[in-house]
C-alpha cells in the first residue's frame, strides 16, 4: 500500500494552512507560528510504484503548484488509526517515489485526520474512478486524509484541542496529533 502526500511547492501560497493558522489564533491558542496543510491519499491494491508515480503526478497533484511524496507501507487501507501505532506520520520514512523530497523546515507537530472506518469517503470514490480513467484498471482501495504541520511550541493537550475544535469532526473522523 502506498501513501501519497501532496505538498505545495516552495514559493506558492498554502492558503488552507494560513486559514487554519488564523483559526487557531481565533480560538485564543498562542504558540503556533505557521501551519502547512497537505492532502493525503492511501492507495492499496497491488499497484506498482511506477503506477503510483503516474497517479501522483497526473491526477493527485497540480503540476504547476504542487509536488508529492509517496511512501510504501505495510498496513492496509481498511484499518482504523486507533489500532495502529504512529499511523504513518513519521515523515522521515524513505520516499518510494518523490517528485522532490521535501522535509519540514524546523521543529513541528503533525496532526493527521482520517475518516473513521465505515464512514463513506466520497473523494476516495472519485479517485478510484479517475485512476481507471488514467488507464490503470486494477481494483484498488483508496482512503483520503488531511495532514497539518504545525510549527511552534504547544503542549499535547493544546494540540488535541486544535484537532478536536478545528480540524476533525470526531463524530465521523479520527485524528493522531503528535
Amino acid at each position, binding site marked *: 500500500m502506498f501513501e501519497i502526500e501532496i505538498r505545495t511547492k516552495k514559493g*506558492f501560497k498554502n*492558503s488552507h494552512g494560513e486559514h487554519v493558522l488564523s483559526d487557531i489564533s481565533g480560538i485564543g491558542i498562542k504558540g503556533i507560528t505557521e501551519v502547512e496543510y497537505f492532502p493525503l491519499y492511501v492507495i492499496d491494491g497491488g499497484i506498482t510504484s511506477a503506477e503510483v508515480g503516474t497517479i501522483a503526478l497526473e491526477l493527485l497533484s497540480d503540476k504547476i503548484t504542487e509536488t508529492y511524496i509517496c511512501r510504501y507501507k505495510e498496513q492496509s487501507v481498511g484499518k482504523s488509526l486507533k489500532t495502529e501505532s504512529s499511523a504513518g506520520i513519521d515523515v522521515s520514512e524513505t520516499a518510494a517515489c518523490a517528485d522532490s523530497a521535501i522535509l519540514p523546515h524546523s521543529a513541528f507537530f503533525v496532526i493527521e485526520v482520517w475518516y473513521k472506518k465505515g464512514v463513506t469517503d466520497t473523494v476516495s470514490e472519485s479517485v478510484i474512478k*479517475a485512476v481507471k480513467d488514467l488507464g490503470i484498471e486494477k481494483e484498488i482501495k483508496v482512503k483520503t486524509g488531511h495532514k497539518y504541520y504545525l510549527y511552534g511550541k504547544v503542549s499535547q493537550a493544546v494540540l488535541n484541542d486544535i484537532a478536536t475544535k478545528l480540524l476533525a469532526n470526531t463524530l465521523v473522523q479520527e485524528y493522531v496529533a503528535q
Partner: protein
Amino acid sequence: MKKAKVLILRTAGTNCDCETQAAFELSGAVAERIHINALIEKKDKIFEYDILAFPGGFSYGDDIASGKILANEIKNKLGDRIKKFALSGRPIIGICNGFQVLVKMGLLPDPELFEQVSTLSYNDSDKFECRWVYLKTEKKIKNESNCVWTKNLPDIISLPVAHGEGKFIPDDRKLLDSLNENNQIVFRYSSKDGGKPEYPLDPNGSVDQIAGICSTAGNVFGLMPHPERYIFALQHPAGESFCRGYGWGKVIFQNAVDFVK
C-alpha cells in the same frame, strides 16, 4: 439560414449547463446538453457541432482539485477529438469549472501544445468567493486579441464570479510574458474605474489579475466569471442594461454564434 449548433458538455456535478444552453439559444443557436459518457460512446459526434462549451459547476464534486478529474477524463478518452476540434478553429468556451478543465487538460493557453502549463489554484482567501466583479476587457487592456468571444465589449464590464479555485498561475514568467505579447489575456479583474483592484473586487489573487484568457488563434476562450448569469439586465443587481434589456454576458455568446454563421 442554418443555425449554429452548440454542444454543452456535462457530467456529474455540472450545474450551469441549463443557463449556458439558454444563453446560446437566446443568441440564435441550437444548443444541446450532452453527457460525457454519451460523447465517449460516439466520439465523432463532436464534429456535428459548431461550438463546444464547458459549463460551470462542481464536476465530480471538485474532488482532488476543481476540474481535475474531468480534465483527465476528457484528455484520456477524447483528447485527440478535442484537440482536432480546437485546431479546426471552431469556438470553444470554458466557464468557471469549464475554464479549470480547459487549463488543466492543457487546451489553454495553447491547444497545439495540449499540455498543462498554467493552473487555477485556491483563492488567496481560502474561501469560496461569490460576488459581482468588474472586468477590464481587451479594449481597456489595449491589446489586439483575435478572441472571437470578446468583441464588441466596452472598456469595463461587470460579471458575477462564484469559485473557490480561481487564482490563475502561469508556470513561469516567460509564459506570462508570452500571454501578454500574444494578446491572450482578454479579461482582468479591476476596480470600477479600471484601476488595480483590492480584495474583494480581486476575488482570488490571480497573477496580474487574470480573469480570462484566449488561444492565440482566438477560438478557445476560458474565464472564471459567469457570462451566462448576465444575459438579462434584470440579473444585474443594479439592473444595468446595454441594449433592450440584455446584459453584457449575452454579447459573449452572440459573438461566437455570429462567428460560425
